[in-house]
């Protein structure tokens, strides 16, 4: 679910651009440090692979078919940091070349799918794949899609797109079905890839306790539940954030907020970039 431009209110997209841009800058730096030059074409081709794999239809129900979304699978192939960068690249190309998702909303889409989606897809694999491998891979695909979709829904609601509670429930149910399909396809794809060459799927790094894993997944689920079961809370939050009511008349404020937000994003990126560059050369 790629949010186009025009859906998110300025406070929402400015905030998410402000979160995503420095996060991607840091991840890009980290991914670059951990890769030799042979990985660069690999990451690019893997991005193209995810794009192309989305064309392969999986029959799932009577008359319906699903396709791979790929965030979780990618994180199990190239690692979560590189996967986030590859997903960001895919989202940027979809926004610019295919008008699939907006440019101002790119920060939101990157946050939902490349950052939160990849993290939610990789965590279960990292934490549980020693004990319950198949379940962990399935959970990765499931959580990755569910987290992305619920975050997108929450952002739309925060932006003041009004939806009757019934619609919110229906779409949450649809998201859950889509997430189950992604879990099944991810598991099937990982098995198919492993059958060809087991080394293509990376081993999860380090072991942490199951408690931490449960807590992490619990946090994700709590966020999802917040988005889906508390439309009233979101509406209240919208009002306090000035979604549409208080600031509507003061258009100058909103223009200034938009322009100021863009300047802030730019300054934040430059400062962080400089800082990281200095740290690297020191």
């Amino acid at each position: 679910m790629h949010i186009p431009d025009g859906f998110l209110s300025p406070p929402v997209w400015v905030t998410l651009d402000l979160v995503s841009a420095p996060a991607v800058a840091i991840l890009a730096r980290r991914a670059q440090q951990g890769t030799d030059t042979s990985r660069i074409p690999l990451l690019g081709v893997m991005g193209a692979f995810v794009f192309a794999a989305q064309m392969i239809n999986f029959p799932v129900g009577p008359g319906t078919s699903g396709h791979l979304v790929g965030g979780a699978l990618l994180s199990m192939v190239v690692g979560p940091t590189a996967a986030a960068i590859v997903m960001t690249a895919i989202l940027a190309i979809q926004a610019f070349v295919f008008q699939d998702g907006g440019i101002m909303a790119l920060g939101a889409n990157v946050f939902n799918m490349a950052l939160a989606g990849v993290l939610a897809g990789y965590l279960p694999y990292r934490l549980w794949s020693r004990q319950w491998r198949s379940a962990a891979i399935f959970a990765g695909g499931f959580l990755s899609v569910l987290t992305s979709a619920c975050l997108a829904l929450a952002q739309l609601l925060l932006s003041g797109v009004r939806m009757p509670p019934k619609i919110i429930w229906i779409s949450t149910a649809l998201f859950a079905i889509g997430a189950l399909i992604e879990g099944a396809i991810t598991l099937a794809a990982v098995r198919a890839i492993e059958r060809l060459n087991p080394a293509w799927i990376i081993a999860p790094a380090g072991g942490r306790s199951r408690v931490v894993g449960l807590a992490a997944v619990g946090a994700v689920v709590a966020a999802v539940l917040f988005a889906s079961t508390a439309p009233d809370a979101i509406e209240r939050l919208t009002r306090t954030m000035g979604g549409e009511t208080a600031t509507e008349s003061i258009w100058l404020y909103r223009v200034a907020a938009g322009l100021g937000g863009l300047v802030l994003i730019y300054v934040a990126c430059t400062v962080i970039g400089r800082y990281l560059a200095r740290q690297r050369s020191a």
Partner: protein
Amino acid sequence: MHHVVVERWSRGSSPLHTRDARSKLGALLVFLIAVSTTSPRAQFAIAGYAALLLAALFAARLPLVSVLTRAALVLPFSATFALITWWAGDPARAISLAEKSFLSGLAVLLTIATTPWNDLVHALGWMGVPRFLLLVIQFVYRYLFVISEQAQHMRLAAISREGTRRARNVRFRAATGAVGVLFARSWERAEGIHRAMLARGFTGHFLSLERPHFHAADIVFFFAAATAAVAVRMAL
């Protein structure tokens, strides 16, 4: 495939094509912010933005109908949300959702259709997008169509072999196998690409022979476009 169309459009020679990518990207951002901050009830401003884009479309000498059709790809998505919003009792916002997403998509398409891909990537790098991310973007874009074509061939081959009327679990397994094979072929391709790049002296970044220059006309274009968008935003 339709990507070829946009690439062909982007190699034109209209006044808009010859502007520096950075000035076009800057103007695009200002335009998108103006649209994004417009009130749902400001229908005159929406018409103003549409007029600006149409003027740019004529200046770029692009085929009007095909560009508008492509930009309309966003409409099924936004129309769904527009209907829901209308149903929730907010028709003004419902209409503005569809209008804003269409105009924003059209503006992005216009920028892409008048800017060669490499210039666009160069402009993004100039704006401070991390170089590593841009490298990955370049590679994804380069191989996107190659591997998609391969996926299409495999799909066609699968349908030719067994048709579409097989049992669901058989087709599911076939699709799984297709993903695995596509993955293996992509991996091999990446290794081949890397060897070829090393043979050509790749050191970790792309080199470009052209150095884009900012001309006075680019600065004038940026300020004219930005002023027009802000003027529509404030006056209407």
